[in-house]
């Protein structure tokens, strides 16, 4: 009896070992295609932004043969491009000089279709790698695609388990694919380079760093307007500056760098940055303050069916630099107080102008006043919420800034 028990235990162990040594999901690391960046363009492309081909590259006709796929239904509407690192070339020297197909460190594959999931699967017919999206850093959308509306295209990115909510969603004025084509000077891959730029949000307030897929999905589901980061590029450089304004899930226009700075100040998404003002009296000097701490409080004021908002912005910063001004004897208390007043005025003017611009130009509630009303004034929202789109452009907003200079340097 004991003998047979031992035998069955051994059998069970062997079966277990057989089952557990490898599983259906086993995948060797070198057979995975780690998608680092993804760009979506409209198709057919705008003729003005057509891709240029180098001497060793295939002709546009040959390229298009590869990129097109047969569709079950409808016409192709989008071109999706992915960036894959070529791990075999990972040790090669980096930089814009390395551009030949053999020496390239990444591979950009474009596929045309009308469903991103089927485009993704069609790409499998062009690479021996199994595409893997867990390490996706950036999703770049062309302006044309963004203007058609995000809710139409983001479903795969919400549904697919490999997609992460932290993927950065960026909008590009021209062809989105061109951003992936950038050959960075320091980093190996343009997607990683681009994603890394947003780590500087504590030093530069003119970029939208709250640009994650998760934030976009929440805003779309809740029906809030929002701003996403704008990105432009040259052959070897990207710049993430300014923003794309979204109203009702569609891109409504571009916000300037300064407007993004104001939006960050109002929405409590200001991580850090620099504000410069002219000296208060007489001299043609200029003083830069690095903002180290910022807090905005938005208070809705409801009076019957009328609503207005008061925004109180408290800012702390350090006296960082002066230009055309020799202040070593002048950093007196009255001078700093007058400087603080200048900063307050600058912030108030900047925010007021931005709010007016968003109200008039785009009718976009990127400050999410609607969210504040829903949470803080539910009775008002219940009565007037359905008319918010027509109420918002005329809503009165007053901005009050309170600035304190803390440190003055050595």
């Amino acid at each position: 009896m004991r003998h047979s028990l031992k035998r069955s235990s051994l059998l069970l162990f062997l079966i277990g070992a057989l089952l557990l040594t490898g599983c259906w999901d086993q995948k060797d690391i070198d057979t995975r295609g780690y998608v680092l960046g993804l760009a979506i363009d409209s198709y057919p492309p705008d003729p003005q932004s057509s891709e240029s081909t180098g001497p060793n590259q295939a002709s546009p006709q040959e390229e298009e043969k590869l990129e097109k796929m047969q569709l079950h239904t409808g016409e192709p509407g989008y071109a999706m491009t992915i960036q894959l690192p070529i791990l075999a070339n990972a040790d090669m020297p980096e930089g814009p000089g390395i551009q030949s197909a053999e020496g390239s460190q990444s591979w950009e594959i474009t596929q045309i279709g009308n469903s991103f999931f089927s485009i993704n699967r069609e790409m499998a017919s062009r690479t021996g790698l199994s595409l893997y999206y867990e390490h996706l850093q950036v999703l770049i959308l062309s302006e044309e695609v963004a203007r058609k509306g995000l809710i139409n295209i983001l479903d795969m990115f919400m549904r697919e388990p490999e997609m992460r909510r932290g993927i950065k969603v960026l909008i590009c004025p021209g062809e989105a694919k061109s951003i992936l084509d950038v050959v960075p000077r320091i980093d190996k891959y343009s997607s990683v380079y681009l994603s890394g730029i947003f780590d500087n949000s504590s030093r530069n307030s003119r970029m939208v760093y709250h640009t994650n897929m998760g934030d976009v999905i929440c805003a779309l589901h809740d029906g809030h307007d929002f701003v996403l980061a704008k990105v432009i590029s040259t052959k070897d450089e990207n710049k993430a500056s300014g923003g794309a304004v979204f109203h009702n899930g569609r891109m409504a226009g571009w916000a300037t760098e300064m407007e993004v700075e104001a939006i960050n100040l109002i929405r409590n998404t200001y991580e850090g940055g620099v504000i410069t003002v002219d000296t208060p009296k007489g001299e043609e000097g200029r003083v830069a303050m690095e903002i180290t701490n910022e807090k905005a409080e938005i208070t809705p004021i409801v009076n019957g069916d009328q609503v207005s908002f008061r925004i109180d912005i408290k800012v702390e910063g350090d006296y960082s630099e002066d230009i055309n001004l020799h202040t070593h004897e002048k950093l007196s208390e009255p001078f700093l107080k007058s400087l603080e007043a200048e900063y307050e005025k600058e912030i108030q003017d900047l925010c007021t102008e931005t709010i007016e611009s968003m109200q008039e130009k785009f009718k976009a509630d990127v400050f999410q006043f609607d969210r504040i009303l829903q949470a803080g004034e539910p009775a008002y929202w219940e009565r007037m919420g359905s008319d918010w789109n027509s109420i918002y452009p005329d809503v009165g907003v007053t901005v009050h800034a309170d600035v304190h200079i803390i440190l003055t340097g050595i």
Partner: protein
Amino acid sequence: MKEERLMPPQVMTLTACGILGIDILIVQRDMVGVAGQDAWISLILGGMTAMILGSVCYYLAHLYPEMDLPQILLHIFGDFFGRIILLPFIVYDVLYLGMSLRIFAQALKMFLLSATPMLPIVVLILLAAGYAVCKGVFAIGGIMDIIFPLCAVTILGILLMPMNQIHLSNLKPILYKNTGNVVKGILTGYQQFTGYGTIAYFYCYTQKTKGTFKWYLAGLGIPIFLYIALTLITIMVFGPTDIGYLTYPTLTLAKSIEIPGTFLERAESFAAILWINIVFVSVALLLFRTKRNFLELLHMKTKHQNYVIWGIALLLIGIALFIRSGTEAISFFSKIKKSSRIFGLLIFPFITAMGYIKKRRETRA
């Protein structure tokens, strides 16, 4: 007289593990579906209800300290009626366990093992849980002692890591024209904690001391706290509308954790691995309960328990894989879960009342 005795602190781990289970993945969706942004209030009230009714269940076990639930039923209601009352317990446990295995397999497939069929996932966890049950209650208690702290720490990690993404405004307005839904949500909240009934199966194996009840309450309180905190954080991170679109909000919450640097981009894999342990202990406890129910129903001797365990395992595989559609499986699981209210609110208090009367008569006689 039972030979093996569980220590009073093990009552806490067993009770907590009996409550934590597959529901940890979907508790927020169930609650927000009923009470919106006030779901956490319903969960607090549901948790308080569970504390009260859990105490009733403990009292029943305390009345007959050397018997487990199926033995108590046969003792109070006699061999025939006792078995009749035992039947719904068996049906509930088997269906709940089978569908838990199914939800577990499909969630694991979705997030970790996309190419692995569900059958081996279900079979492997049943093999592990079945082996633990074969080894007896003391082995189960020992496993819980190791796994429970790891699980609690993991859940706390999932709660704390997304703190930088929370928006307090997602909780507002609080109780604005939503009181009715909050009250409705109490039952939904309560049903998340009906696993407290596990005490009726394990009390007879426990050392009886004055502190045992306190350990039991602690075992009830820990999952209540964790579920409330999980629901609060999930609402604050995603908002009530977005939660409605998420199939497994807890896994999405774990996925939303961003650790600076690129060396740990899939931190949620650790959560998934430890979540497998949570499901394993939950399955082991339910399998133990089902085994005990079947042994008493069929009047079988303990030495034949292994046949019962593996027989139940085969039945569970069939139940787990019977429904093909994932959405239907989740919907069926919710219906089964709803029926747990009948046990907690009606059957257990009824058995306790009958047990009390019977005990008084026995004492007088």
